[in-house]
């Protein structure tokens, strides 16, 4: 075995998720036997619970365009896309030397970190609610009513 290129390209979580989905992986553990291996199923289950599960390529392109002005490293941009930090505290460990590179000047009203967080919140869709949150606001679906009347 010979390694020709150890790093032939980085993939976002979304790309790996789409690749596994195209191969036939589903959340149902019995459904994906035969099409994908059990280890691939585990990776799929992990990715489905990350913000990548309802991202689109369009949203990612839009986000990359918007954060060009902050001059972030490619690895940092990918990390933000994979993690979708929703506030300044969560974005701080991703960007190295955050205080020096992104200016925060309250006197002049510039807060680049907050601008970056706002871009994340606007462009990248939020992850789906966790199961225990969904149970609390369970509502009757509106389409059920016309069926019952007939």
């Amino acid at each position, binding site marked *: *075995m*010979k390694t020709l290129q150890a*790093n032939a390209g980085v993939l976002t979580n979304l790309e790996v998720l789409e690749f596994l989905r195209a191969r036939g992986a589903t959340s149902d553990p019995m459904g994906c036997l035969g099409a994908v291996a059990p280890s691939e199923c585990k990776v799929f289950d992990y990715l489905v619970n990350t913000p990548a599960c309802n991202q689109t390529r369009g949203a990612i392109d839009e986000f990359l365009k918007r954060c060009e002005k902050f001059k972030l490293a490619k690895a940092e941009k990918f990390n933000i896309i994979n993690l979708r930090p929703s506030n300044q505290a969560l974005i701080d460990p991703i960007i190295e030397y955050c205080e020096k590179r992104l200016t925060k000047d309250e006197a002049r009203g510039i807060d680049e970190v907050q601008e970056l967080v706002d871009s994340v919140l606007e462009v990248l869709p939020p992850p789906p609610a966790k199961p225990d949150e969904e149970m609390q606001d369970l509502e009757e679906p509106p389409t059920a009513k016309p069926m019952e009347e007939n």
Partner: protein
Amino acid sequence: MFCLSLIEHNLPLPPHLLNRPLLDAIKEELERLFLDKVLSNLGLCISIYDIRTIEGGFVFPGDGSSTYKVVFRLIMFRPYVGEILCGKLKASDANGLHLSLGFFDDIKVPVHLLPHKSRMGDDGIWIWEHECGDLPMDLDEEVHFRVTKINYPPIPLEQDANASPFSPMEIIGEIYGDGLGLLSWWAD
């Protein structure tokens, strides 16, 4: 977290696969060899991304199988040092925390990389002593951690009967710093 690696391998194709289309047979053989295995310094192989070239098909003397030289790309799980990942807290003991990503379990956060002023509670749960109060690191919580090192220990020649199973790839993480640690500490 994930990247592609371009690999070239001389693959002997076992005779029981000779009735299958070549591409399928080679893909199955590659999956058998590489899937869910750790390649040293390349990471954990998640999946075969694509097959670039297949050459050869020679039968060497004394062999029942044909050997192909295959160039292909693998999806590898190999986080870079400094990446922030999100895992679940699986276990905690006197040496620190053990985190898991579902498909990868060997993530350790040793004691010196826990937040400043952490102590071990009576029930084996680590607690962060913060000004606003004590914050316990309960099990099954989502934790953001930074990757500090990835170790690929060599296969041991001898092992005790009751030693923990050998892990070919280990990630050392840290939760020392703003925004790291339990997600519930920092989320809105």
